[in-house]
């Protein structure tokens, strides 16, 4: 099972410049980021805090759905899904 993680431009520096990262064998968003931490720890740390929560001004979507309105990091992912990481409109300076 493969899930694609699409990164915003500021995080691509932590993924060798790639926009999309393929993640294998994860069935939840939490597992996606756990796998991602093994290969791209810089991405994981900028999406999640030390305590494992999604940072307040980052949004994570599975397809078109924000995981805050699903089951959070326990939201399921399926083969072929795209997990989008996006800066929230609430952040920025």
């Amino acid at each position, binding site marked *: 099972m493969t899930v694609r993680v699409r990164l915003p431009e500021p995080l691509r520096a932590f993924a060798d410049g790639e926009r999309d990262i393929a993640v294998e064998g994860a069935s939840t968003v939490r597992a996606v980021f756990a796998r991602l931490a093994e290969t791209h720890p*810089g991405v994981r740390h900028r999406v999640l805090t030390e305590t494992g929560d999604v940072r307040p001004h980052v949004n994570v979507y599975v397809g078109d759905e924000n995981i805050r309105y699903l089951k959070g990091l326990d939201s399921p992912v399926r083969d072929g899904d795209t997990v989008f990481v996006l*800066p929230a409109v609430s952040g920025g*300076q």
Partner: protein
Amino acid sequence: MAKAKGLSVREGDVMVMVGTMKGAFLFRADAKRRRWERSGPYLQGNPVYALAYDGRRGRHRLWASANNPFFGTTLRASDDFGAQWTQPKEPNIAFPKKTKLSLLNIWQVVLGNAAEPDTLYCGVEPAALFVSHDAGEKWELVKGLHDHPHRAKWEPGGGGLCLHTIVPHPKDPKRMHIAVSTGGVYRTTNGGKTWAASNKGVRAEFRPDKYPVFGQCVHKIDRHPSKPDRLFLQNHWGLYRSDNGGRSWTDIANGVPSDFGFPMLTHPHRANWAYIMPLESDGFRCMPSAKLRVFRTKNAGKSWEPLARGLPQKDAYETVLRDGLAADALRPAGIYFGTRSGRLYASANDGASWKLVADSLPPITCVKTAVIGREARSA
């Protein structure tokens, strides 16, 4: 926006580092400090609450806290005066998992005592102290302070629950003071293993018990290197001096328009001199009477004089934050401050007169200085 070039500096130049809500700027001048050149912004879009210069052991390293509003806070470094900055893949300052805490901001970066040329300290939010003994490669939480029984009762001030001030002892690397809003002043005499609250005599206006052991909202403390047991303190209401290493404090709010304010700065060469920038009140955090003035004592707080030559004395609704006032190490001393409206002012004569160096910067969070090649550390 195009990437900013590094600041071009020469031996003996004064460098003023300015942190803002949208990045950092660098300024340089020769020792006369008449004409300033600017570079930046660096770390664009990142609030920069802490800056430091480490010139020890031949380094020319700038440290900056970059509080990325989306992706978290990291400590970043530049060895070429801003042209390039490190971008650590994993956060260099992070709470251990078992603390169940997440880093919100880095408020202070301070070099260790002269006897520890590779030591650095960071004060962070939520309030904690981190130390590095290898010039900033690896950092660890100072457990002695983190495990202090008072910590659970510290409460956030208006800026959050932050450890914003670190004052190493100039002679003894095992002694240090730190300040937390709101927790108060703590001191260690054994290299951080244990800490004692050091707030005797400091008022907590916002509590039913006005003189608690801890819980004061201390805004800034500073000490003079030649007289390390003397400290000055700007409180959330209150000005104080200690002559016994912080064991007790004496009220020195003598003749100031307000004893509310944020910065406290000792003069680099004169142990009886200190500078403050009073604000009208906690409810109206602007200069009293809308006059932009620095106040100086030359007698350790027995009296204070306004310094206003060259500063606007009408309709100046300005605020200077706790790290917005700094001095360089030259004689006479350069004194610098930056306002929340983005103005940077400088004095090349101990504060006797002032010039506007920069206008229209983003809101200024911190101002730090260094004399390149003559001193190893920023002030």
